[in-house]
């Protein structure tokens, strides 16, 4: 019987090699696949193109991969909060493609939904539009943006079952469901792996058909980037 469950991040990332394109779920440090990132860093896989909304911070998330110079190109919407990123960008070591956040999300969804391209008004008239087809619908201009093509998508969910069904928690959902749909191979790491039947079919955010490998992660740090609390 085919089994999607793998023991750990080491087994999960089998097949990820130098030069591949990876999607990594999360928004800032929220809902990022900590275990897989740790393992990719440990193995030193390099020359990677990473599609992710952000690039982590200096010492966490994708920032760990940047520090080890494993990333050739970053496709993201916002890459602040990262001095090492800045250094590599200014020295030309790192290539960066900035994409409006909604365009980024929708290009992932397009891949998962088998749509080769989508139309969005975001970026019309700006440098984001350079080289792209502009098309008018109903008096408004839209850019045609292409679906992403990623070798692996790596996502983090709260719970998952052995069939690969995933449930996310609060805003740790963010890009994870759209990336889960979009990888040629999708790896899910979850805080809690449960048997089939333990999740309500009505509550599943990512159906298992999109998930090829799943494992229960360990030692989640779940770091908070901007700890803000209420005044008195």
């Amino acid at each position, binding site marked *: 019987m085919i089994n999607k469950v793998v023991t750990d991040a080491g087994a999960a990332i089998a097949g990820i090699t130098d030069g591949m394109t990876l999607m990594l779920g999360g*928004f*800032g*440090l*929220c*809902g990022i696949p900590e275990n897989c990132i740790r393992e990719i860093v440990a193995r030193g896989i390099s020359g990677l193109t990473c599609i992710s*909304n952000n690039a982590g911070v200096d010492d966490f998330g994708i920032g760990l991969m940047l520090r080890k110079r494993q990333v050739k190109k970053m496709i*993201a*919407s*916002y*890459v*602040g909060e990262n001095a090492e990123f*800045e250094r590599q*960008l*200014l020295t030309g070591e790192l290539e*960066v493609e*900035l994409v*409006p*956040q*909604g*365009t*980024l*999300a*929708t290009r*992932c*969804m397009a891949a998962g939904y088998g749509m080769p391209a989508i139309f*969005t*008004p*975001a*970026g*019309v*008239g*700006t*440098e*984001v539009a350079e080289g792209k087809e502009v098309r008018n619908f109903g008096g408004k201009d839209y850019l045609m943006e292409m679906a992403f093509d990623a070798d692996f998508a790596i996502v983090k969910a*709260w719970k998952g079952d052995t069939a690969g069904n995933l449930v*996310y*928690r*609060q*805003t*740790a*959902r*963010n*890009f*994870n*469901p*759209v990336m889960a749909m979009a990888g040629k191979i999708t790896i899910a790491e979850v805080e809690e792996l449960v048997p089939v039947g333990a999740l309500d079919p009505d509550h599943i*955010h990512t159906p298992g058909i999109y998930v090829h490998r799943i494992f229960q992660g360990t030692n989640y740090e*779940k*770091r*908070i*980037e*901007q*700890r*803000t*609390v*209420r005044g008195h």
Partner: protein
Amino acid sequence: MLDKNGIAKRIAKEIKDGYYVNLGIGIPTLVANYIPENINVVLQSENGLLGMGPFPHAGEEDADLINAGKQTITMLPGSAIFDSAMSFGMIRSQKVDLTILGAMEVSEYGDIANWKIPGKLVKGMGGAMDLVASAKNIIVAMQQVNKAGESKLLRQCTLPLTGVRCIRKIVTELAVFEVDAENGGFHLLERAPGISVDEIRNATAGKFFAPVHVPEMDL
């Protein structure tokens, strides 16, 4: 001259009962503090939440619950969580009634620049390009004059654009403007308390229009 909280307070008056509102980082975030209690407003955070509440009490921060500025937040009753594609889906389809965001420059035709200063590090546009391209109702909250004393309300933006002909309303430390994207021009609607029309005119580099009588803001 208004401080940041003054600008936020004035903008809060633009929010109507039943509105879904997206607040950008900076001054726009402060607007939440001035929404009248007798109206029902739902805040959208583009990382995937409707119903954003205030910051949590100390000790109740949850790493899984943040806003688009990556700050820890809370959810109000009636909140809904969704993924990033749906979040920008509702933005593009204009279900969000009002977007409030900051700007580095606005042109007299309503172009906006707020994401990139060439030569300085580029941090990225985040969701700003999606928001300005899609929202039917955008208010810019900004300082009208930079630290060098130069107006940021221009004939043409000098910085790379975030969006074209999309801004209709601007609230600054000096005034409230309406932008005429058709013919070009900043139309003065209200003065900050104690500020004269001439002071505002002098702080506006783009085409400036003012009626004979310009009311003071009611804060």
